[in-house]
């Protein structure tokens, strides 16, 4: 700061003494209380430093005399939110699945809660919005169900899982029909069966092969997948006559599946999620697009 001030020639007002290429700055003093406000904010910051967590150190930070913690605060808020959800959770617990579905209030809560739980637990395999993923993760948004698409069936599948240790799990196994020396079917026969399976969805390209495959299908496959390929939900046997394929639906894919089948598995969620969450998940999945 310059130690002396000069008068501006034209206005007669004092200047700050700063000059740039002949342009001088007039001194227009601020009211002094403005300066006091600045000092007050500095004093306030010191008080704040003492009261609240402030200065980071090597192994932690100054805690402040009020003992405030934003982490504790958020935990309290979450607990309060949970308490506020209580009446809805009680409603979910005490109502049957179909009651939840027809009660607007509970349905909205279940859809919202189910959506969150689905994103955390189910979406990695079944995809966001339950659209499924290639390689045996079924879509939950269409009306093609392996183990049934009613509320009760979906609920049971989520609770007990598929091909798990759970006593009530959905379990079935498709035998391998080829690949070994003593296999039930030769590679040629497997090709014929695959052609017949394609013909079930009206996609066959080789009529003769499909005709050769028909008796083989009836003997080895129809007991589970049905005479017309309609599938069987009791055994989780997929329908073969529609356009929806869990795995590769090309001839090569079908041949591979008959030869050495891949079968998916899903954990039994009752050991991981509470009963209300599983109910909400069932209602949510049912509402995704194909609920029956």
């Amino acid at each position, binding site marked *: 700061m310059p130690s002396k001030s000069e008068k501006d020639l034209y206005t007669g007002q004092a200047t700050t003494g700063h000059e740039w290429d002949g342009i001088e700055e007039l001194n227009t003093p601020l009211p002094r209380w403005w300066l006091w406000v600045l000092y007050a904010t500095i004093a306030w910051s010191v008080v704040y430093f003492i009261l609240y967590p402030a200065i980071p150190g090597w192994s932690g930070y100054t805690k402040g005399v009020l003992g405030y913690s934003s982490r504790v605060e958020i935990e309290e808020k979450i607990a309060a939110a949970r308490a506020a959800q209580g009446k809805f959770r009680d409603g979910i617990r005490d109502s049957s699945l179909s009651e939840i*579905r027809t009660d607007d209030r509970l349905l909205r809560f279940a859809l919202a809660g189910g959506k969150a739980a689905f994103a955390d637990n189910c979406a990695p395999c079944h995809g966001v919005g339950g*659209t499924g993923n290639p390689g045996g993760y079924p879509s939950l948004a269409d009306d093609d169900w392996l183990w049934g698409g009613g509320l009760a069936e979906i609920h049971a599948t989520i609770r007990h899982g598929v091909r798990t240790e759970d006593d009530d799990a959905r379990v079935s196994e498709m035998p391998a029909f080829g690949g070994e020396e003593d296999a039930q079917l030769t590679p040629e026969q497997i090709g014929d069966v695959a052609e017949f399976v394609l013909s079930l969805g009206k996609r066959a390209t080789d009529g003769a092969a499909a005709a050769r495959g028909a008796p083989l299908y009836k003997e080895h496959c129809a007991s589970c997948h049905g005479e017309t390929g309609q599938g069987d939900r009791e055994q989780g046997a997929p329908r073969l006559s529609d356009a929806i394929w869990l795995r590769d639906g090309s001839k090569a894919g079908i041949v591979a599946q008959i030869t050495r089948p891949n079968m998916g598995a899903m954990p039994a969620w009752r050991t991981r999620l509470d009963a209300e969450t599983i109910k909400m998940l069932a209602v949510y999945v049912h509402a995704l697009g194909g609920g029956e």
Partner: protein
Amino acid sequence: MSPDGSATVHDYGDDADVRSVREQKADARAGAAAPARPLNLYARRVQVYPRKVRGRFRSLKWAALLGLLGLYYILPWVRWDRGPGAPDQAVLVDLNHERGYFFFIEIWPQEVYYLTGILVLAAVGLFLATSLAGRVWCGYACPQTVWTDLFMWVERQIEGDRSARIRLDKQPLSAGKVGRKTAKHAAWLAIAFLTGGAWIMYFVDAPTVVGDFFTGAASETTYFFVGLFTATTYLLAGMAREQVCTYMCPWPRFQAAMLDEDSLVVTYNRYRGEPRGPIRKGETRNRTGGDAGHCIDCKQCVAVCPTGIDIRDGLQLECIGCGLCVDSCNEIMAKVGLPPNLIAFDTERRMAQQAAKQPLTYRLIRPRTVLYFFLMLGVAGLMVFALATRDDRSVNVLHDRTLFVRLSSGAIQNSYDVKVLNKARTARRFDLTVEGLPGAKIVLVGRSTEPAARVVVSAPPDGLGEYRLHVRAPAAGVTGEETKIRFVVTGEDGGTAVRETTFRGPKAQSR
């Protein structure tokens, strides 16, 4: 008045040495600029002691003060019956329930553009008023002015007029001084509390909050905001006063852009007034006679100014256009037998015409005033139109993130979250249909798993019904990746609301 008659005709007691804030600051700077003293970038605030004044503009200002304060305090108590379940307060911003009420108008949060319209109207209205009559908003209607005026009146009742207040402030501390100061600040705080208390009444039911406030049952937010507005009113109207206008408010900085030579502003008639000088006993003045102007340099225009300026220096940032100096000058002119309105609301053009001895003209209709007027008319018209055509129902649609699903029958299915907004005061049922896609049917989650061409949805009074639904259409009808479809809700009265959205399908070659 001295016996030899050489003193000025009018004696104002201690008030004889009136100096504007500008002069007092210049004096302070001159002191600070003395050699060997460091440059001072901060200055003491110069206290302003406005003198009491009577006259036309003072009466107008009282009328504005009474009208505006009356409106502010009474409005929350006005009742307006909206039927059961709705607040009966005429003007209420119900933040908790996300509704705004203004007599017969009720707006939802997504209709906040009405507020934008009001703000645009206010801004353009301010421009129009300023280009016509200067800063009349600042002088008469701004809350800062209204409350400062009220606080000054209280101060005058307790501490006396200008000279008494100056004397009191110069006195050493005494019981009497402490008593008066305490009484003044107590009265200020009481008014400030009433101001803050009334503010909160615009956001919660007034009778309820008054009861709750004094029984300790009101919310923390209520106490906080009452406290906040009590503190700011006390500080801004009691302490900061004209400094709010000169240091904080942006409006004085760009008001010049709205003013031109035809705007009425508080003007000192330099042509008539100069050269100024004290009037001697028995002296008569007129322009054609002596060499003295009509200004007798009594400085009473400075003494009454709430911002402490000398209007004779010309139009300046600090002038809030209240016209109190006009009243004050006219009082003096009448006493010394000179014509009134040496200081008046007048235009630069008329001043120049007067100096040039041309006929005096007003020009109210100018490009800028016409522009501002039609801007206001346009915005007001738009708002009235929007309000008159405002529908009491509406439908919002959100498409799932999942684009589409092919069902085992080959049909294409899209899923949507639909919200039906019912702005009526009764619960209502609507028919929901979808148009624009042949064979499209709706599956309403929670109601049925069978598709139907028409589903029934309902919404509570003044609320919304939220639904999740699937739209199913035969693949043959889905002709592309995107089909425009419309959701239509039809009330029992036949009125409809429509929302257009997209139905997604597979690419043409993969079907």
